[in-house]
């Protein structure tokens, strides 16, 4: 008899394909697991609408479960409620920082402010040297979920997982 806890334990090993130090559970992409007899339904949600990693995540989930003998698996993609970085685990934030990516701050969720030109000025801590003397270079970086920053103290550029 398969239990949800067993399935979750296996899924806890499934890493994000673009930022492999964190798992899909850490990121809050994994939304739900249900087990009905031998049938498993895994529900996931994309970070950004166009996240190109979703197909790969879907395949990784199926193959991780298949490796444990679970073949009757449906991976369901839901858009609502919309993903937010507030769902990221404390462990996930710590792992990002250790990896050199400044983790997201709490957004407090709720409606999105659509104010104009709110260039991010609240200093982030540099994941390399810890200085708060940092600046945002671009809202858009190597992946949809990150922005590009520079530390003015150690002069190193770094990624920030955007508060979203």
């Amino acid at each position, binding site marked *: 008899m398969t239990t949800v806890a067993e399935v979750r334990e296996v899924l806890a090993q499934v890493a994000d394909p673009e930022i492999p130090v964190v798992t899909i559970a850490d990121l809050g992409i994994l939304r739900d697991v249900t087990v009905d007899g031998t049938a498993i339904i895994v529900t996931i949600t*994309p970070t*950004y*609408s*166009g*996240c*190109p990693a979703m197909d790969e995540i879907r395949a990784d989930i199926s193959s991780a479960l298949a490796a444990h003998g679970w073949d009757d698996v449906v991976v369901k993609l*839901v*858009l*609502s*409620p*919309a*993903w937010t970085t507030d769902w990221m685990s404390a462990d996930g934030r710590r792992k990002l920082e250790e990896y050199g990516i400044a983790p997201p701050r709490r957004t407090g969720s709720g409606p*999105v*402010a*659509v104010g*104009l*030109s*709110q*260039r991010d000025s609240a200093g982030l801590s540099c994941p390399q040297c810890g200085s708060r003397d940092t600046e945002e*270079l*671009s*809202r*858009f*970086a*190597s992946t*949809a979920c990150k922005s*590009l920053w520079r530390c003015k103290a150690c002069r190193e550029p770094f990624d920030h997982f955007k508060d*979203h």
Partner: protein
Amino acid sequence: MTPLETYTLRHGDDCLVLGQRLCEWAARSPQLEEDVALLNIALDLLGSARSLLSQVGDEDQLAFLRDEPAFTNAQIMELDNGDFGRTMARQLLVSGYQVLLWEALSSSADEGLAGVAGKAVKEAAYHLDHAHSWVVRLGDGTEESHARMQAGLDDVWPYALELFEADDVVTSLVAQGIAADPEVLEPAWRATVEKVLTEATLGVPSSDWRPTGGRHGLHTEPFGYLLAEMQHLQRTHPGASW
């Protein structure tokens, strides 16, 4: 097609066509960060397009195998990129509109639309912020950048007005709490963009000419070239995948 499908497809086509058009900046932007930014914006739009098209039918069939008159995007989405100023002018007008549109649709009575809108509203806010900073930087920049920014804005402005057209499809869905009301969107949009244009020392264009027809399959000359590029692989090698 039901009114809901028609409405969903219009917004899916808007996202698809502008996303495709922005991709033409790949490797041609003024700086590397801008390549990354424009393609990230294109990727967000493509993501929304896929979700919306999938609610109407098979996304690949709809994107790759429809002929030009079957596309229902507003014409502003298909316009040539022109210079960087013109691209940013269009992005300001479109993202200013989409932020308000998605905000309204995130409480749509239709769950499918509300789901896409709830995600897209956060992304469109980034797009708007990006366009805003460039329009101000170029508008309130040198004599040359100001002149080109204003020229780009004047070119694309009349096309933006099509976004606020209401026909029977829109009117009936507004009454059911499904669609966003263009009469509410337009003044809010004007307030958003006029504030930016003032900051950018740019004049707000006025136009009696209102291009129309995109929602009913009438498109401008550059659109055919965009479609040919987007569709030729699937049409030459049907079902190709890799």
